[in-house]
Protein backbone atom coordinates (compact mmCIF):
# COMPACT_ATOMS: atom_id res chain seq x y z
CA UNK A 1 0.00 0.00 0.00
CA UNK A 2 1.45 3.32 -1.04
CA UNK A 3 0.43 6.16 1.21
CA UNK A 4 0.46 9.78 0.10
CA UNK A 5 0.70 11.88 3.21
CA UNK A 6 2.27 14.98 4.63
CA UNK A 7 6.07 14.93 4.88
CA UNK A 8 8.59 17.26 6.43
CA UNK A 9 6.35 18.35 9.31
CA UNK A 10 6.82 17.65 12.99
CA UNK A 11 4.70 14.73 14.18
CA UNK A 12 2.95 16.97 16.64
CA UNK A 13 2.70 20.74 16.87
CA UNK A 14 3.44 21.87 20.42
CA UNK A 15 1.98 25.34 20.18
CA UNK A 16 0.27 25.62 23.51
CA UNK A 17 1.61 23.00 25.85
CA UNK A 18 -0.73 20.26 24.65
CA UNK A 19 0.53 18.72 21.41
CA UNK A 20 -1.84 19.05 18.49
CA UNK A 21 -1.79 17.89 14.91
CA UNK A 22 -3.59 20.80 13.34
CA UNK A 23 -2.44 24.26 12.34
CA UNK A 24 -3.65 27.62 13.60
CA UNK A 25 -4.76 28.69 10.11
CA UNK A 26 -8.33 29.54 9.22
CA UNK A 27 -10.31 27.06 7.10
CA UNK A 28 -9.22 27.28 3.47
CA UNK A 29 -6.13 29.40 4.13
CA UNK A 30 -3.50 29.20 1.40
CA UNK A 31 -0.64 29.20 3.92
CA UNK A 32 -1.43 25.60 4.86
CA UNK A 33 -1.28 24.42 1.24
CA UNK A 34 2.02 26.21 0.71
CA UNK A 35 3.43 24.67 3.90
CA UNK A 36 2.54 21.24 2.60
CA UNK A 37 4.31 21.81 -0.71
CA UNK A 38 7.38 23.30 0.93
CA UNK A 39 7.73 20.63 3.60
CA UNK A 40 7.24 17.84 1.09
CA UNK A 41 9.90 19.32 -1.18
CA UNK A 42 12.42 19.62 1.66
CA UNK A 43 11.72 16.06 2.78
CA UNK A 44 12.00 14.65 -0.74
CA UNK A 45 15.25 16.51 -1.32
CA UNK A 46 16.66 15.34 2.01
CA UNK A 47 17.66 18.84 3.05
CA UNK A 48 15.72 19.31 6.30
CA UNK A 49 18.81 18.85 8.49
CA UNK A 50 20.67 21.70 6.84
CA UNK A 51 17.78 24.03 6.17
CA UNK A 52 17.05 27.14 8.18
CA UNK A 53 13.72 28.86 7.66
CA UNK A 54 13.46 32.47 8.67
CA UNK A 55 9.93 32.78 10.01
CA UNK A 56 8.06 36.03 9.51
CA UNK A 57 5.72 38.11 11.59
CA UNK A 58 2.35 37.58 10.00
CA UNK A 59 -0.11 34.70 10.00
CA UNK A 60 2.81 32.33 9.34
CA UNK A 61 4.53 33.40 12.56
CA UNK A 62 4.06 29.89 13.98
CA UNK A 63 5.63 28.16 11.00
CA UNK A 64 8.38 26.93 13.29
CA UNK A 65 5.89 24.73 15.13
CA UNK A 66 5.18 22.91 11.87
CA UNK A 67 8.15 22.55 9.54
CA UNK A 68 10.76 20.20 10.86
CA UNK A 69 13.89 22.21 10.05
CA UNK A 70 16.12 24.73 11.80
CA UNK A 71 14.10 27.82 12.58
CA UNK A 72 14.74 31.45 13.31
CA UNK A 73 12.13 34.14 13.88
CA UNK A 74 12.78 37.60 12.45
CA UNK A 75 11.28 40.94 13.34
CA UNK A 76 8.54 42.07 10.96
CA UNK A 77 10.14 42.98 7.63
CA UNK A 78 13.64 41.88 8.61
CA UNK A 79 13.60 38.30 7.38
CA UNK A 80 15.90 39.01 4.42
CA UNK A 81 18.49 40.64 6.65
CA UNK A 82 18.42 37.70 9.04
CA UNK A 83 18.53 35.29 6.09
CA UNK A 84 21.55 37.17 4.76
CA UNK A 85 23.34 36.78 8.08
CA UNK A 86 22.66 33.06 8.19
CA UNK A 87 23.73 32.63 4.61
CA UNK A 88 26.99 34.48 5.25
CA UNK A 89 27.87 32.77 8.52
CA UNK A 90 26.61 29.28 7.68
CA UNK A 91 27.34 28.98 3.98
CA UNK A 92 26.59 25.26 4.01
CA UNK A 93 23.00 25.72 5.06
CA UNK A 94 19.96 26.09 2.82
CA UNK A 95 18.33 29.37 3.80
CA UNK A 96 14.64 30.00 3.26
CA UNK A 97 12.72 33.16 3.89
CA UNK A 98 8.96 32.76 4.13
CA UNK A 99 7.17 36.11 4.22
CA UNK A 100 3.77 37.69 3.78
CA UNK A 101 3.04 40.67 1.57
CA UNK A 102 2.99 43.08 4.49
CA UNK A 103 6.25 41.71 5.80
CA UNK A 104 8.07 41.53 2.46
CA UNK A 105 6.49 44.20 0.29
CA UNK A 106 5.77 46.95 2.83
CA UNK A 107 8.08 47.26 5.84
CA UNK A 108 10.57 44.78 4.40
CA UNK A 109 10.63 45.83 0.78
CA UNK A 110 13.99 47.54 0.86
CA UNK A 111 15.62 44.63 2.70
CA UNK A 112 14.18 42.29 0.07
CA UNK A 113 15.21 44.41 -2.86
CA UNK A 114 18.76 44.72 -1.52
CA UNK A 115 19.09 41.03 -0.70
CA UNK A 116 17.86 40.18 -4.20
CA UNK A 117 20.28 42.69 -5.66
CA UNK A 118 23.16 41.12 -3.74
CA UNK A 119 22.09 37.71 -5.02
CA UNK A 120 22.02 36.20 -1.55
CA UNK A 121 21.64 32.45 -1.42
CA UNK A 122 18.08 32.62 -0.17
CA UNK A 123 14.96 30.87 -1.42
CA UNK A 124 12.22 33.39 -0.79
CA UNK A 125 8.59 32.34 -0.60
CA UNK A 126 6.41 35.40 -0.80
CA UNK A 127 2.83 34.81 0.22
CA UNK A 128 0.62 37.34 -1.52
CA UNK A 129 -2.81 37.22 0.07
CA UNK A 130 -3.54 40.88 -0.72
CA UNK A 131 -3.86 41.85 2.93
CA UNK A 132 -2.31 42.02 6.38
CA UNK A 133 -3.91 38.81 7.58
CA UNK A 134 -2.56 38.53 11.07
CA UNK A 135 -3.50 42.00 12.21
CA UNK A 136 -7.05 41.77 10.98
CA UNK A 137 -7.17 42.63 7.30
CA UNK A 138 -5.58 46.01 6.69
CA UNK A 139 -4.45 47.14 3.25
CA UNK A 140 -1.20 45.61 2.01
CA UNK A 141 0.94 46.94 -0.85
CA UNK A 142 -0.61 44.11 -2.89
CA UNK A 143 -4.23 45.02 -2.15
CA UNK A 144 -6.09 45.43 -5.43
CA UNK A 145 -7.61 48.72 -6.55
CA UNK A 146 -11.16 48.87 -5.29
CA UNK A 147 -10.54 46.12 -2.74
CA UNK A 148 -12.13 46.88 0.61
CA UNK A 149 -9.97 46.33 3.64
CA UNK A 150 -10.05 47.59 7.22
CA UNK A 151 -7.97 50.59 6.21
CA UNK A 152 -9.56 51.11 2.79
CA UNK A 153 -13.23 50.76 3.75
CA UNK A 154 -14.37 52.30 0.46
CA UNK A 155 -11.90 50.33 -1.60
CA UNK A 156 -8.27 51.04 -2.44
CA UNK A 157 -7.98 54.15 -4.60
CA UNK A 158 -4.87 54.78 -6.68
CA UNK A 159 -4.69 58.52 -5.95
CA UNK A 160 -4.90 57.84 -2.23
CA UNK A 161 -3.09 54.57 -1.68
CA UNK A 162 -1.14 54.09 -4.88
CA UNK A 163 -1.18 51.01 -7.07
CA UNK A 164 -0.76 47.35 -6.16
CA UNK A 165 2.94 46.61 -5.91
CA UNK A 166 4.09 43.94 -8.34
CA UNK A 167 7.12 42.54 -6.58
CA UNK A 168 8.18 39.96 -9.18
CA UNK A 169 8.17 42.65 -11.84
CA UNK A 170 10.15 44.99 -9.59
CA UNK A 171 12.78 42.37 -8.77
CA UNK A 172 13.02 41.49 -12.43
CA UNK A 173 14.79 44.84 -12.92
CA UNK A 174 17.76 43.50 -11.00
CA UNK A 175 20.69 41.60 -12.44
CA UNK A 176 21.41 39.14 -9.67
CA UNK A 177 18.26 37.04 -9.11
CA UNK A 178 18.44 33.60 -10.68
CA UNK A 179 14.80 32.68 -10.55
CA UNK A 180 11.63 34.77 -10.25
CA UNK A 181 8.21 33.23 -10.59
CA UNK A 182 4.62 33.86 -9.58
CA UNK A 183 2.35 30.92 -8.86
CA UNK A 184 -0.91 30.32 -7.03
CA UNK A 185 -2.54 27.73 -4.80
CA UNK A 186 -6.09 28.55 -5.84
CA UNK A 187 -6.79 25.24 -7.62
CA UNK A 188 -5.19 21.91 -8.44
CA UNK A 189 -3.54 22.93 -11.69
CA UNK A 190 -2.02 25.96 -10.01
CA UNK A 191 -0.96 23.99 -6.95
CA UNK A 192 1.00 21.63 -9.20
CA UNK A 193 2.78 24.59 -10.82
CA UNK A 194 3.51 25.99 -7.37
CA UNK A 195 4.97 22.67 -6.33
CA UNK A 196 7.42 22.79 -9.23
CA UNK A 197 8.42 26.39 -8.58
CA UNK A 198 9.06 25.73 -4.90
CA UNK A 199 11.29 22.77 -5.73
CA UNK A 200 13.14 24.80 -8.32
CA UNK A 201 13.89 27.55 -5.81
CA UNK A 202 15.24 24.97 -3.37
CA UNK A 203 17.36 23.25 -6.01
CA UNK A 204 18.94 26.60 -6.80
CA UNK A 205 19.97 26.80 -3.15
CA UNK A 206 21.34 23.27 -3.11
CA UNK A 207 23.43 24.18 -6.15
CA UNK A 208 24.46 27.50 -4.54
CA UNK A 209 23.35 29.49 -7.54
CA UNK A 210 21.85 32.48 -5.80
CA UNK A 211 18.61 34.29 -5.07
CA UNK A 212 15.37 32.54 -5.97
CA UNK A 213 12.00 34.20 -5.54
CA UNK A 214 8.60 32.57 -5.67
CA UNK A 215 5.51 34.70 -5.17
CA UNK A 216 2.46 32.65 -4.30
CA UNK A 217 -1.07 34.00 -4.64
CA UNK A 218 -2.77 32.60 -1.59
CA UNK A 219 -6.40 32.96 -0.56
CA UNK A 220 -7.22 34.56 2.79
CA UNK A 221 -10.93 33.70 3.09
CA UNK A 222 -11.23 35.38 6.46
CA UNK A 223 -10.18 38.83 5.38
CA UNK A 224 -11.68 38.66 1.93
CA UNK A 225 -14.94 37.90 3.70
CA UNK A 226 -15.55 35.01 1.31
CA UNK A 227 -15.97 31.30 1.88
CA UNK A 228 -12.89 29.19 1.09
CA UNK A 229 -13.99 28.26 -2.42
CA UNK A 230 -15.03 31.77 -3.39
CA UNK A 231 -11.82 33.15 -1.94
CA UNK A 232 -9.84 30.77 -4.14
CA UNK A 233 -11.95 31.81 -7.11
CA UNK A 234 -11.30 35.47 -6.27
CA UNK A 235 -7.55 34.81 -6.51
CA UNK A 236 -8.02 33.43 -10.02
CA UNK A 237 -10.48 36.00 -11.30
CA UNK A 238 -9.34 39.17 -9.56
CA UNK A 239 -5.82 38.85 -8.27
CA UNK A 240 -4.38 37.31 -11.43
CA UNK A 241 -5.58 40.31 -13.44
CA UNK A 242 -2.96 42.41 -11.68
CA UNK A 243 -0.56 39.65 -10.71
CA UNK A 244 -0.23 37.42 -13.76
CA UNK A 245 1.21 34.00 -13.11
CA UNK A 246 4.34 32.82 -14.83
CA UNK A 247 8.08 32.54 -14.71
CA UNK A 248 9.61 35.98 -15.04
CA UNK A 249 13.14 34.73 -15.07
CA UNK A 250 14.97 31.43 -14.95
CA UNK A 251 18.68 31.56 -15.58
CA UNK A 252 19.35 28.60 -13.30
CA UNK A 253 20.70 26.46 -16.14
CA UNK A 254 23.35 29.04 -17.09
CA UNK A 255 24.06 30.41 -13.62
CA UNK A 256 27.23 29.13 -12.05
CA UNK A 257 27.39 27.66 -8.60
CA UNK A 258 29.18 30.07 -6.39
CA UNK A 259 30.45 29.49 -2.92
CA UNK A 260 30.28 32.52 -0.75
CA UNK A 261 33.42 34.63 -0.60
CA UNK A 262 35.85 33.90 2.21
CA UNK A 263 35.11 35.89 5.34
CA UNK A 264 36.26 39.50 5.14
CA UNK A 265 39.40 40.68 7.01
CA UNK A 266 39.00 40.69 10.75
CA UNK A 267 38.98 44.03 12.59
CA UNK A 268 42.57 43.43 13.66
CA UNK A 269 43.66 43.25 10.05
CA UNK A 270 42.12 46.66 9.57
CA UNK A 271 43.74 47.96 12.70
CA UNK A 272 47.14 46.57 11.94
CA UNK A 273 47.50 43.40 14.00
CA UNK A 274 49.22 40.23 12.87
CA UNK A 275 47.41 37.66 10.80
CA UNK A 276 49.56 34.56 11.14
CA UNK A 277 47.83 33.13 14.17
CA UNK A 278 46.20 29.81 14.83
CA UNK A 279 42.45 29.66 14.37
CA UNK A 280 40.61 29.13 17.64
CA UNK A 281 39.37 25.69 18.65
CA UNK A 282 36.47 25.29 21.07
CA UNK A 283 37.66 24.95 24.67
CA UNK A 284 34.65 24.74 26.96
CA UNK A 285 36.72 24.86 30.15
CA UNK A 286 37.91 28.38 29.36
CA UNK A 287 34.42 29.85 29.62
CA UNK A 288 33.59 33.36 28.47
CA UNK A 289 34.83 36.68 29.82
CA UNK A 290 32.70 39.71 29.21
CA UNK A 291 34.69 42.90 29.50
CA UNK A 292 33.45 46.47 29.28
CA UNK A 293 35.75 49.46 29.13
CA UNK A 294 34.23 52.90 29.52
CA UNK A 295 35.36 56.47 29.79
CA UNK A 296 35.39 59.48 27.55
CA UNK A 297 36.64 59.75 24.00
CA UNK A 298 40.39 60.31 23.76
CA UNK A 299 41.26 58.15 26.78
CA UNK A 300 42.27 55.24 24.59
CA UNK A 301 39.19 53.24 25.58
CA UNK A 302 38.74 51.67 22.19
CA UNK A 303 42.39 50.79 21.67
CA UNK A 304 42.62 49.22 25.13
CA UNK A 305 39.69 46.99 24.19
CA UNK A 306 41.20 46.19 20.85
CA UNK A 307 44.50 45.17 22.48
CA UNK A 308 42.64 42.67 24.68
CA UNK A 309 40.69 41.31 21.72
CA UNK A 310 43.92 41.00 19.76
CA UNK A 311 45.71 39.25 22.62
CA UNK A 312 42.80 36.80 22.69
CA UNK A 313 43.18 36.17 19.00
CA UNK A 314 46.91 35.54 19.40
CA UNK A 315 46.01 33.05 22.13
CA UNK A 316 43.71 31.18 19.71
CA UNK A 317 40.67 32.24 21.69
CA UNK A 318 37.46 33.49 20.16
CA UNK A 319 37.16 37.23 20.63
CA UNK A 320 34.99 40.15 19.67
CA UNK A 321 35.35 43.88 20.00
CA UNK A 322 32.28 46.05 19.86
CA UNK A 323 32.72 49.80 20.22
CA UNK A 324 29.97 52.15 21.25
CA UNK A 325 30.53 55.82 20.52
CA UNK A 326 28.66 58.72 21.95
CA UNK A 327 26.97 60.98 19.46
CA UNK A 328 29.94 63.34 19.71
CA UNK A 329 32.93 62.55 17.51
CA UNK A 330 35.48 63.61 20.10
CA UNK A 331 35.40 64.05 23.83
CA UNK A 332 32.03 62.42 24.39
CA UNK A 333 31.43 59.24 26.33
CA UNK A 334 32.98 56.19 24.82
CA UNK A 335 32.87 52.52 25.64
CA UNK A 336 33.60 49.16 24.15
CA UNK A 337 32.68 45.57 24.87
CA UNK A 338 35.23 42.84 24.50
CA UNK A 339 34.43 39.18 24.70
CA UNK A 340 37.12 36.57 25.14
CA UNK A 341 35.76 33.08 24.88
CA UNK A 342 36.61 29.42 24.58
CA UNK A 343 33.64 28.94 22.25
CA UNK A 344 32.23 30.84 19.27
CA UNK A 345 30.62 34.12 20.26
CA UNK A 346 26.97 34.81 19.54
CA UNK A 347 26.45 38.40 20.61
CA UNK A 348 29.30 40.88 20.96
CA UNK A 349 27.42 42.85 23.59
CA UNK A 350 28.38 42.72 27.28
CA UNK A 351 25.36 44.01 29.20
CA UNK A 352 26.58 42.27 32.39
CA UNK A 353 30.35 42.53 32.24
CA UNK A 354 32.50 40.30 34.47
CA UNK A 355 35.19 42.94 34.17
CA UNK A 356 34.43 46.64 34.07
CA UNK A 357 37.10 49.28 33.53
CA UNK A 358 35.95 52.81 34.38
CA UNK A 359 38.07 55.76 33.38
CA UNK A 360 35.64 58.36 34.65
CA UNK A 361 32.82 58.78 37.12
CA UNK A 362 29.86 58.74 34.70
CA UNK A 363 31.05 55.33 33.51
CA UNK A 364 31.11 53.98 37.05
CA UNK A 365 27.71 55.44 37.84
CA UNK A 366 26.24 54.01 34.71
CA UNK A 367 27.73 50.53 34.51
CA UNK A 368 28.88 49.44 38.01
CA UNK A 369 25.42 48.17 38.96
CA UNK A 370 25.44 45.79 35.98
CA UNK A 371 28.48 43.84 37.17
CA UNK A 372 27.37 40.44 38.49
CA UNK A 373 28.59 38.74 41.66
CA UNK A 374 32.20 37.60 41.36
CA UNK A 375 32.97 40.40 38.92
CA UNK A 376 35.75 42.94 39.09
CA UNK A 377 35.68 46.70 38.63
CA UNK A 378 38.87 48.52 37.84
CA UNK A 379 38.56 52.25 38.27
CA UNK A 380 40.83 55.17 37.77
CA UNK A 381 41.72 56.52 41.22
CA UNK A 382 40.28 59.94 40.39
CA UNK A 383 36.77 58.49 40.19
CA UNK A 384 34.81 59.48 43.24
CA UNK A 385 32.92 56.42 44.46
CA UNK A 386 29.68 57.55 46.09
CA UNK A 387 27.91 54.21 45.80
CA UNK A 388 29.64 50.96 46.67
CA UNK A 389 29.77 48.27 43.97
CA UNK A 390 27.17 45.46 44.08
CA UNK A 391 27.70 42.73 46.64
CA UNK A 392 30.36 40.19 45.74
CA UNK A 393 32.04 42.54 43.25
CA UNK A 394 35.65 43.54 43.90
CA UNK A 395 36.70 47.12 43.28
CA UNK A 396 40.30 48.09 42.47
CA UNK A 397 41.42 51.72 42.27
CA UNK A 398 44.31 52.40 39.92
CA UNK A 399 45.97 55.82 39.74
CA UNK A 400 46.41 55.46 36.01
CA UNK A 401 46.59 59.14 35.15
CA UNK A 402 49.03 59.83 37.98
CA UNK A 403 51.26 56.87 37.08
CA UNK A 404 51.19 57.55 33.34
CA UNK A 405 52.23 61.14 34.03
CA UNK A 406 55.00 59.96 36.38
CA UNK A 407 56.20 57.52 33.74
CA UNK A 408 56.44 60.40 31.27
CA UNK A 409 53.46 59.81 28.92
CA UNK A 410 50.23 61.20 30.42
CA UNK A 411 48.24 59.78 27.52
CA UNK A 412 49.31 56.22 28.29
CA UNK A 413 46.59 55.64 30.92
CA UNK A 414 45.25 52.75 28.86
CA UNK A 415 48.64 51.01 28.92
CA UNK A 416 48.62 51.34 32.70
CA UNK A 417 45.13 49.85 32.85
CA UNK A 418 46.16 46.99 30.59
CA UNK A 419 48.96 46.18 33.01
CA UNK A 420 46.49 46.28 35.90
CA UNK A 421 44.19 43.85 34.06
CA UNK A 422 47.16 41.60 33.38
CA UNK A 423 48.09 41.65 37.04
CA UNK A 424 44.55 40.85 38.13
CA UNK A 425 44.48 37.97 35.65
CA UNK A 426 40.86 38.69 34.78
CA UNK A 427 41.12 38.39 31.00
CA UNK A 428 42.25 34.76 31.13
CA UNK A 429 45.08 35.70 28.77
CA UNK A 430 48.86 35.43 29.29
CA UNK A 431 50.70 38.67 30.02
CA UNK A 432 53.04 37.91 27.14
CA UNK A 433 50.14 37.94 24.68
CA UNK A 434 48.78 41.18 26.13
CA UNK A 435 52.23 42.69 25.58
CA UNK A 436 52.37 41.41 22.00
CA UNK A 437 49.02 43.02 21.31
CA UNK A 438 50.19 46.23 22.95
CA UNK A 439 53.24 46.26 20.65
CA UNK A 440 51.01 45.75 17.64
CA UNK A 441 48.81 48.67 18.57
CA UNK A 442 51.86 50.90 18.00
CA UNK A 443 52.84 49.28 14.74
CA UNK A 444 52.54 52.59 12.95
CA UNK A 445 54.63 54.42 15.58
CA UNK A 446 57.31 51.88 16.45
CA UNK A 447 59.18 54.42 18.62
CA UNK A 448 56.36 54.09 21.16
CA UNK A 449 56.67 50.33 21.49
CA UNK A 450 59.55 50.21 24.02
CA UNK A 451 58.17 53.21 25.89
CA UNK A 452 54.80 51.53 26.37
CA UNK A 453 56.40 48.20 27.28
CA UNK A 454 58.30 50.07 29.97
CA UNK A 455 55.15 51.76 31.25
CA UNK A 456 53.38 48.40 31.29
CA UNK A 457 56.15 46.81 33.39
CA UNK A 458 56.26 49.69 35.85
CA UNK A 459 52.48 49.73 36.23
CA UNK A 460 52.51 45.97 36.73
CA UNK A 461 55.14 46.41 39.44
CA UNK A 462 53.00 49.09 41.06
CA UNK A 463 50.10 46.65 41.29
CA UNK A 464 52.32 43.98 42.80
CA UNK A 465 53.50 46.40 45.43
CA UNK A 466 50.14 47.94 46.25
CA UNK A 467 47.59 45.14 45.77
CA UNK A 468 49.06 42.48 48.02
CA UNK A 469 46.91 39.40 47.79
Amino acid sequence: MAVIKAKGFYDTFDRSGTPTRDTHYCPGCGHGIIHKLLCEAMADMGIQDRTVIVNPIGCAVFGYYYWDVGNVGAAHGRAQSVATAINRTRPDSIVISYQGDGDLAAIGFNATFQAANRGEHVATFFVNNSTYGMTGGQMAPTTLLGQKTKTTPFGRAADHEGYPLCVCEALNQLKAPVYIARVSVADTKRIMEAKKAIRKALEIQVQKKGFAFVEILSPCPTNLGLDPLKAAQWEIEQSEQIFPLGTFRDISAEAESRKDPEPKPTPSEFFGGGTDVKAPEPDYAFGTKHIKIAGFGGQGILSLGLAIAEAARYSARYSSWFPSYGPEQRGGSSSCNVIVSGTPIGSPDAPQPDVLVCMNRPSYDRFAKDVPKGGVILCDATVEITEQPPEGVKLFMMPSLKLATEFGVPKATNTVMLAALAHLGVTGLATEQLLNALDDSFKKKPKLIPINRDIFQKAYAWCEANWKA
Partner: protein
Amino acid sequence: MDDKGNGSPALPRPVFNEDHCKGCGRCVAACPRKVLRIKDTLNVRGVNPAEYVGEGCIGCAICFYNCPEPYAIQVHKPEKK
Protein backbone atom coordinates in the same frame (compact mmCIF):
# COMPACT_ATOMS: atom_id res chain seq x y z
CA MET B 1 -15.95 0.64 3.27
CA ASP B 2 -14.08 0.44 6.61
CA ASP B 3 -15.59 1.53 9.91
CA LYS B 4 -14.43 5.10 9.28
CA GLY B 5 -16.22 5.18 5.96
CA ASN B 6 -12.89 5.09 4.11
CA GLY B 7 -13.64 2.52 1.42
CA SER B 8 -12.19 -0.88 0.60
CA PRO B 9 -8.50 -1.34 1.46
CA ALA B 10 -8.00 -3.17 -1.82
CA LEU B 11 -8.82 -0.03 -3.81
CA PRO B 12 -7.39 3.50 -3.80
CA ARG B 13 -9.10 5.63 -1.21
CA PRO B 14 -8.72 8.79 0.80
CA VAL B 15 -8.29 8.29 4.55
CA PHE B 16 -9.51 11.18 6.62
CA ASN B 17 -8.58 12.08 10.13
CA GLU B 18 -11.67 14.04 10.71
CA ASP B 19 -10.53 15.70 13.96
CA HIS B 20 -8.03 17.71 11.93
CA CYS B 21 -10.45 18.72 9.21
CA LYS B 22 -11.64 22.31 9.24
CA GLY B 23 -14.47 21.69 6.84
CA CYS B 24 -13.24 24.17 4.24
CA GLY B 25 -14.53 22.05 1.38
CA ARG B 26 -11.51 22.47 -0.87
CA CYS B 27 -10.99 18.74 -1.20
CA VAL B 28 -14.66 18.17 -2.01
CA ALA B 29 -14.62 20.79 -4.76
CA ALA B 30 -11.29 19.60 -6.19
CA CYS B 31 -11.94 15.85 -6.37
CA PRO B 32 -12.19 15.01 -10.06
CA ARG B 33 -14.41 12.01 -9.35
CA LYS B 34 -16.74 13.93 -7.04
CA VAL B 35 -16.48 11.18 -4.45
CA LEU B 36 -16.06 13.43 -1.41
CA ARG B 37 -18.71 15.27 0.53
CA ILE B 38 -19.21 17.30 3.65
CA LYS B 39 -20.75 15.31 6.46
CA ASP B 40 -23.86 16.55 8.19
CA THR B 41 -22.50 15.70 11.65
CA LEU B 42 -19.95 17.80 13.51
CA ASN B 43 -16.40 16.82 14.46
CA VAL B 44 -14.60 17.64 17.74
CA ARG B 45 -13.83 21.15 16.47
CA GLY B 46 -17.48 21.74 15.84
CA VAL B 47 -17.31 21.85 12.04
CA ASN B 48 -18.75 19.55 9.42
CA PRO B 49 -15.78 17.54 8.17
CA ALA B 50 -15.21 16.03 4.75
CA GLU B 51 -15.71 12.33 4.12
CA TYR B 52 -15.40 9.76 1.36
CA VAL B 53 -18.63 8.52 -0.18
CA GLY B 54 -17.06 5.07 -0.11
CA GLU B 55 -16.33 4.27 -3.74
CA GLY B 56 -15.02 5.75 -6.95
CA CYS B 57 -11.65 7.10 -5.79
CA ILE B 58 -8.82 6.82 -8.32
CA GLY B 59 -6.03 7.71 -5.88
CA CYS B 60 -4.99 10.91 -7.67
CA ALA B 61 -4.18 12.70 -4.35
CA ILE B 62 -5.71 15.93 -5.57
CA CYS B 63 -7.73 16.13 -2.37
CA PHE B 64 -4.50 15.83 -0.36
CA TYR B 65 -2.77 18.69 -2.19
CA ASN B 66 -5.77 20.99 -1.94
CA CYS B 67 -6.12 20.45 1.78
CA PRO B 68 -4.45 23.13 3.92
CA GLU B 69 -4.15 20.81 6.92
CA PRO B 70 -1.10 18.56 7.09
CA TYR B 71 -2.79 15.69 8.87
CA ALA B 72 -6.43 15.74 7.71
CA ILE B 73 -6.13 13.55 4.59
CA GLN B 74 -3.96 10.70 3.41
CA VAL B 75 -4.46 8.85 0.16
CA HIS B 76 -3.88 5.09 0.22
CA LYS B 77 -3.18 3.28 -3.02
CA PRO B 78 -2.63 -0.44 -3.48
CA GLU B 79 0.82 -1.14 -4.95
CA LYS B 80 0.74 -1.66 -8.74
CA LYS B 81 1.55 -5.24 -9.82
